[in-house]
């Protein structure tokens, strides 16, 4: 089943890619004889070749080898939740600043994945956020937003 979805996705991607090539990339009268479309066209062909190879592999592989993967819906939901939380973290990154957003993010995640150790989780969140901010933003001059904090 996952390979079937992958095959369908690859074919769909190839279709979308060819559409993007022919409708968004303009070819001008001057420039090199190949132009900006040729290489992407070759890549689109490579996508179709991948799809053909995938289809062949699916056709020749015995059904018993397809692999009985356990139902991991709950695990996938957890990962989806973490990804959504990470998206929220990045949304808040500039407005709240690195220290505040990172502390909050770390506290939420460690509270779930390192249950019961509230003091360690809080200390880790604060020490890591402040420590890395001072090290990178002030020490190494790496750009990190201060947000709501005055420093």
């Amino acid at each position, binding site marked *: 089943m996952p390979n079937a979805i992958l095959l369908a996705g690859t074919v769909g991607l190839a279709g979308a890619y060819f559409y993007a090539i022919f409708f968004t990339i303009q070819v001008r009268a001057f420039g090199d004889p*190949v132009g*900006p479309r040729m290489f992407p066209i070759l*890549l689109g062909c490579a996508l179709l070749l991948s799809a053909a190879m995938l289809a062949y592999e699916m056709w020749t592989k015995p059904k018993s080898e397809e692999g009985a993967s356990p139902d991991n819906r709950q695990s*996938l939901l957890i990962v989806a939740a973490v*990804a959504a939380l990470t998206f929220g973290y990045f949304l808040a990154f500039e407005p709240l600043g690195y220290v505040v957003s990172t502390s909050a993010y770390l506290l939420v995640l*460690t509270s779930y994945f390192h249950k019961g*150790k509230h003091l360690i989780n809080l200390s880790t969140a604060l020490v890591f956020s402040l420590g890395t901010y001072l090290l990178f933003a002030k020490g190494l001059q*790496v750009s990190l937003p201060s947000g709501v904090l005055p420093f």
Partner: protein
Amino acid sequence: MDILSAVVNGFVVCLQPINLWYTFIGVLLGTIVGVLPGLGASTGMALLLPITYGMNPTSALIMLAGLYYGAKYGGSTTAILIKTPGEASAVMTSLDGYEMAKKGRAGAALAVAAIGSFIAGTIGVLALSLFAVPLAAAAIKFGPAEYFCLMLFALTAVSSLSGKSPAKGLLSTTLGLIIATVGTDLQTGQQRFTLGMVGLQDGISFIVVVVGLFAMAEAFRGMEELHRGVNAPIMRISGKLWLTREEWRRSVGPIWRGGVIGFIIGVLPGAGGTISAIMSYALERRLAKNPDQFGKGAIEGVAGPESANNSDTAGAMVPMLSLGIPGSGGTAVLLGAFIMYGIQPGPMLFSKHPDLVWGLIDSMYVGNIMLLILNLPLIGIFVRLLYIPSGVLYPLIVATSAIGAFGISGDTLDLYLVLVFGVIGYGFEKLEIPAAPLVLSLVLGAAMEQSFRQAMTISGASPSIFFNSVISVTLLSLAVISIAGPFLAARWRTRQA
């Protein structure tokens, strides 16, 4: 400059106090990254790369390379103590290493892994010193057509050798090349696949892809495993960190053979440390007097693979430095670092930047000595890293990824792209699509297209230029064999059965 003078000058560079310091930091971080299960050299390099942005290129590359081969040392620790390879290439070590630990010989297993890695690593660096320059000299004769065919062969070989499915390998490679085409076409100024976003006009940063695909995806995978409660018991280090005379006698042959095998396989694009380790294990099992001992704590099963995966790192550096073609995921990240500093690896590297390249190569000799010291008497300290709660470690990896991504240009678009590639990387793992080909092709994509268009311009848009030289035809044939070979072999096996 002859090779001996170049090597001596390289030592002058790498033995400068500042470069010694960075070699130490690199190998120390590499050992830490290697010890922590699941992180690996590529993830560690991906996280470190943005931080090196403003550094002196020589020092930065020495540190990154130190992390790359240092991770191979650290990876054996978890393979032996918790049967979980810290680095993918340590997978064979976990078979017999863990069994040795169960029998109270964890100390001997760790010792042979460290000593074997040191000897084989030194063999690899010696071979690198000897072979890199002649290969670079031969590559100077390559024109755009030959270079395009070489990169095509490298990518098709990577597609076939990475993972179980050549189709998925090719898909991963193609996706990397597609990502490389995003941005402004430098020859015509045409925007390609930028979706109207100003932030994509310069293309998608290599650092963003690598951090997302390796570090963030690994964090997602780790948190998923945490949720499932997957934990292996950690064996205590027991016995002296040394070998008996009998164990020494049994280890010498596998160490030397592993060193040679690892280097040769490392030179091949896409083969990687895992294949070196597997081939070494298979060879030692075939040569052993008691092959039935393998899988039950045979020291040859640790000595050979550990030596192979270390000399493999030096082998992978040969095509990266001489041809500008990375041989593995780790060297792909290293190549990306070279390009980030405005230095183009390839045949001219040795003549244009001799201090840098020989300083880098010679730093590997020094780094191997440091690693032997770190991994023998100080191994007890590194084992403590295994007790860091994963529930704290993985969120920290995501936060560190955010620093790296945002630090590139201060644009939040890079953060969202890291997340996207993190999800893609996680999906890759679930669908068993190898990620290394995507990284390799992303690094080579721009150069590959440029070579292609230059060749076509020279020939007046005639593809016959790719069939005009023996080198091009040979490489094209090898590329076709790389793609078609696994299918033909499978069909032949089916018919035989």
